[in-house]
Structures are given as structure tokens and as C-alpha cells.
């Protein structure tokens, strides 16, 4: 594809590059903050978990555990396309 042959194409590919999709799940008492299309939720690549939670109006004080692809992560972890993200309040049992 030649550079800038079609302004529409360029716009399209920029948007493609700028968007990533994550599979987002909020659990237990946080479930109520689940956005539409959470299974394929669009984010800007590199968005941190803290930013994501702010965007969704999830009170950070209520979040205890964040799993990205099954591994516990902290709030500053940047997200990328294809990530599986699970957000939990403090839970216990046994």
C-alpha cells in the first residue's frame, strides 16, 4: 500500500493500531461496574489497570486483586491486546 494513497485507509489503520481488545471480568461486589461488551472491551494499548478502573468508575479502594492472564498484577501494569483481565474485591473462603 502506497503511503497516504487514500486518507481513509490511513485513518483506518491508525485506529486499528491504537485499539486493543481485552477480555474483562469484574467479580463479586464489583460485577455491577461491568461495561457493555466486556468480553471484547476496547482500550488504548498501554492503558494501565488503574486508568482502566478509573474509566469504569470502579472505586479503587474496593479493588483488592487484579489478575492479568491468570497472574496477579499491580495497578500500574499496562494492558495489551488479547489480555484476560479479572478484577476482584477482597475475597476469602476455603
Amino acid at each position, binding site marked *: 500500500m502506497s503511503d497516504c494513497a487514500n486518507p481513509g485507509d490511513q485513518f483506518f489503520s491508525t485506529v486499528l493500531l491504537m485499539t486493543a481488545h481485552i477480555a474483562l*471480568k469484574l*467479580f*463479586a*461486589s464489583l*460485577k455491577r461496574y461491568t461495561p457493555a461488551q466486556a468480553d471484547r472491551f476496547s482500550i488504548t494499548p498501554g492503558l494501565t489497570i488503574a486508568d482502566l478502573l478509573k474509566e469504569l468508575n470502579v472505586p479503587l479502594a474496593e479493588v*483488592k*486483586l487484579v*489478575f492479568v*492472564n*491468570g*497472574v*496477579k498484577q499491580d495497578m500500574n501494569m499496562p494492558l495489551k491486546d488479547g489480555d484476560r483481565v*479479572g478484577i*476482584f*474485591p*477482597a*475475597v*476469602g*473462603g*476455603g
Partner: protein
Amino acid sequence: MDLLCVLDFHRVEMMLPIQSKINFGAAPKKRALFPQKDLCHKKHIVNALPIPVLRAIHQTGNGTGSQIHRQENEDRIVKEEIMARILRINTRKKTHSFEEPGADLAALGGRGLTSRMVLNEVPPTCHPLSKHNKLVVAPGLLTGTAAANSGRISVGAKSPLTGGIKESNSGGILSQKLARLGIKAVVLEDKPEDSGFSLVVIKKDSVEILPADEYVGLGNNDVMGRLWDTYGKRVGVMSIGPAGQQRLAAACINFADPNGRPGRAAGRGGLGAVMGSKGIKAIVVDDSGAGKVPVADPEAFKTANKRWVEILKGHPVTSQGLPAYGTAILINIINEAGALPTKNFRSGRFEYAQDISGERIAEVIEQRGGKTKDGCHPGCVIQCSNVYHDKDGKVLTSGFEYETIWALGANTTIKDLDDVAMLDALCDDIGLDTIEMGVTLGVAMEAGLIPWGDGKAAIDLLKKVRTGDPLGKIIGNGSLFTGQALGVDRIPVVKRQALPAYDPRAVKGQGVTYCTSPMGADHTAGYAVAPNILKVGGDVDPLKKEGNVEVSKNLQIATAAVDSTGLCLFVAFAVLDTEDGVQTIVDLLNAQYGLSLTPEDVVKLGVSILKDEHTFNQRAGFTKVHDRLPDFFADPLPPHNVTWDYTEEELQQAKQYD
């Protein structure tokens, strides 16, 4: 990693992870004995000390004995008449006797007491179903008092499942009643020569051993219902179902909850078979007319209990998570962490986890009626239990817990929640350990006896245990026995006991507990899930070996101590995160018994219990080769593709206490 960093510096404190985050830097607080009390008050406190505790202090020279005026102690020993006693029941002669606990038992309760008595009195090489085994039932040190969540009970014996020592812990209403009657332990001894069953009825002024013919063959629901009709609603009951009567190795002992249902069980290790071998179908405890449990310093006790309730009510897990969703709140998180054992430990993720999750259960209960929160005994301020109704709005089961739902659900790939609930209800009624049976059903599916995920077939198979069908007898003996009978090579057990609901490859601290606990594969014995997954009491990587032996060891020590107090283990979620959590438990104990224990003493208690238990197991023939996971755990577990990679030597570190 704060847990480990701090632990490295302070050897004694190292053994007590429950204060890891905040307190370990400081020297343990020593409380002066009875601070700010005048001599008169001091005497009052000393007078309330149980005689055996005083004797123990005198004889061992330990603890605070030297600080207590000797003459006061002796006065008290002479004067005191009422004290917690041990009730022995000879199941052959149908006789009973009370005795004062000896010096080495006096200061013990719960697991500490059951394990010490089993070590002292049961020949470690005996057959668990023989007359030489004993079943010891003991409330905890705080049980019967107003201390929140202190009504749990310990049941100990040599286990017919593992062949080692066993302490199985349960809720229910019986424990507090025993404590109020001043009974420190009930011991079932010897063995009848005939095959009949008896009923033991314990009241304030009497102990009766009666023929139980009319209850023989009944499930636990009917037994408890009829006993409540006969002896009054609200009496404490522990009973065995058809599985215990048949002396099957997966048989449990069920305890009536406050609604008179058998939703609570001393589940693990086949203790129902021991009770069956003693020919005891049920024990009824009626505490009518009993006074309160004596408390040495009521004011201090009240203050400590106020703080204790604040701690439990102030932590999000014990005040919100557990009451709202029950323990099954864990299904989603353990699944997310890639550690939910699925299809007989093949994967750490179950596709249908959400269908059997705590969130889903709460929804169903809301739609159909039932209870999302309930306590297993009066005085529980957490209320993790529940009542689950069927489609017609009738009670199907209660105490529908995470381990049960995992075992009968994800592990067998049964995703219909009502089928899982029915399997749980059958286990409660027939008197079977839900964890052992879930894993056994997985093994049966592995063999092709019934199809994977087929709830109805599993229900039909489980029902066979009730009727004494040979296939029922096979599965009723647990996972290993069933696997051998069916020619299966994938049997997840340690010391013949089925693994619980966390894959050891993806929660390595928990795996260390499975391998090295004297109980066999047991999740409660050292709940490393807390720091591994839940960020409670530290944050240690579950997928790597580093630090996890230490984590398991410390938790095993702390748990042994907590199991001696009668406190529900779930208090640990709050205690682990609260600066004065352990101190508050110690304050309660001190106020009740007029002692001046420190958190250090609690650690020592935990270590001494584990030593007792390992000693019994060694004498029974256990060595480090019994501390292994089955070979197939060397295979990678998706999604993290982690393997079990500890050496035998590394694991043994979890049992080094000196």
C-alpha cells in the same frame, strides 16, 4: 514479599505469619501478669483457673507458674470442685466415667487435646477400626464463652483413610454445649462384641448409653430430625449415616447446625468409620441447666471480645465477601488464577466456572428463597454458610461450600448447580466427606464407570453407598481404593487422602501443605492460598517455589494453634491483616484462664501439636516417602503450564521446627 523479608530477621516471630506485615519488627509484647490489678483481684483470677492448668504450671514449672502465688494455687486446688473433665465411654461395656485431665492435658483444648490424647493413648500401629483406636471429641479452649466464632469442635483418632493421626474440625451446635457442661473431651473407647448400635445422651447430670435400634440405617437428616423430636429442638447432635455404619474410609461425622440439619461435618479422614466401629450411631448433648463457662477475668474478656468482634466486622472478607457469597466466592478467583483443578486435575481452568460460582449461587438463592448467609453455630459473626433450595423452593442442601462445589463440580466437570447440590445433600445424609467423594467420582469417570460431567449418573452411583451395594462400598472407601479397584493410574492423593480444591502446581505453598501436613492432603492445615492468591498475610508468588516452604510451615504452625482455640479458621483472613489480631486472641485466652501468654506461646503451642502429630505418624510407619505428590503432578498444568518440582529434601524443611 513482605512476609518473607520480615520473617528472615526474627526467628521466633518467623513462625507466626499472622502478624507478618506489621508486628514482626517489634519485640513481642509481654504482658505483666494481671497488670493493674490489686492482690484481691489477682486472687479472684487465680481462683478461677482450672485446677489442671494450675497443676500443669506447678509440675512443669513452665509459663507463669512462678509468678502466681503458690499458696493461692494450692488453696484453689483443694477448694475447687467443678472443673472441665474428660468423659470416657466404654463402648463394649456401655459404661462411662469422668476423670480430671492429667497435667499434660490440662492446658490443651481442641486439636491440641485430641492429638495429644491420640498420641498418648492409641497404639500407632493399631488397626483404625480395632478396639485399640479411640475417638476423641474436644471443644476448643475458648468454646462456650461469648468469644465470637469460637464454637468449633475437633475430632481426633487414628484415621482409617490415611493410617495416620487425624484431627477433623467441624462447626455445629454441639461443641458449645459440651463446653458449658464442663466437658473438655468425650472419648469413645474399646469396641462392642456385637454389631448393634448405641446412642449416647449427655445431660447436665447424666450420661446414658441406650440402644439405637430405631435409628440404625437412617440417614443423618432423619436421625437428627428424630433426635430433635425426642430430646428437644436445639440439642447438639453428632451422628453417622449409612457410610459410617459400614465403616467406609470416606465416612464423616455430621454435626447438627442451628437448624438441626447435618450440613456440618468432621469430614476428612474417615472418622465416621471409627465412630461406626465403636457402634455409636449418634451422640446427643443437652446443656439445659448448665451454667456459663467460667471466665477468670470477665472485664478483660469483655474488652478483648469487643475488639475481637470489631476486627472480624471490620475486614472486608469476613464482613462482606464471606457473608454475601459464601466460601464459593473462591470459584471464580481460583479459576482466574489458573488453579481450579478441573477434570481430575487436568487443567487449572473450568470452562463453566461461572455456572457454579458463589455469585451464581447467591443469584439462585435470591430467586428461589433460601439463605445466602447463615452461621454454623451461635456466636458466628461472619456467617459464611447458606441454605440452598431446589427448583420447587424446598431445602435441598445447606453449608454448600467451595470445596464441595469444586469437588463435585469442576473436578467432575458437572456444571449443573442443582446436580452438584443434590450430590452434596446425599453426602450429608449418607455421611460422606464431600471432598473425598468428589475426587472419587472423578476417578470413577477417569475409569469410564460413568461419563464425565454426567450429574445424574453421579447421583445414581453415590446412592449406592446407602444401600451397601458392592460398588457403593468401593466408592465409599475413597479415591485411592476406587482407583485401584477400577485400574486407574491418575489418583490425586497424599497419604491416601484426596487433594482439595487448589492444584498444587499453581498454588505451590498449598502443595507443600498437602505433602507435609500430618493430616495428608488437607487445605485447612496450612492455607497458603491466602498469601499465594488472595494477598492476605503477605504476597508470595504461587507459581514459583521460592518462599513457599516457609509460608506453608508458618501457616501449619499457626493453624494448629487456632484449631486448639475452637475459633473458626476463617477468622484468619481478618487476623492476618490486622496489627493486633493475634494479640487479641491471646488476650481472650488470658482473660478466660487468667494467664499471661504471649503470641510467642501460641507459636510454641502450634509447634508442639505438630510435633505430637508427626511423632504419631512416624511411629505408625510414615517416612518422607509418604510426603510425595503422585507422579502425574510433574506434567504441566494449563494455563500456566507449571509443574510440581520440589525435591524430597526441600519439602522436609517444612517439618523442621528447631
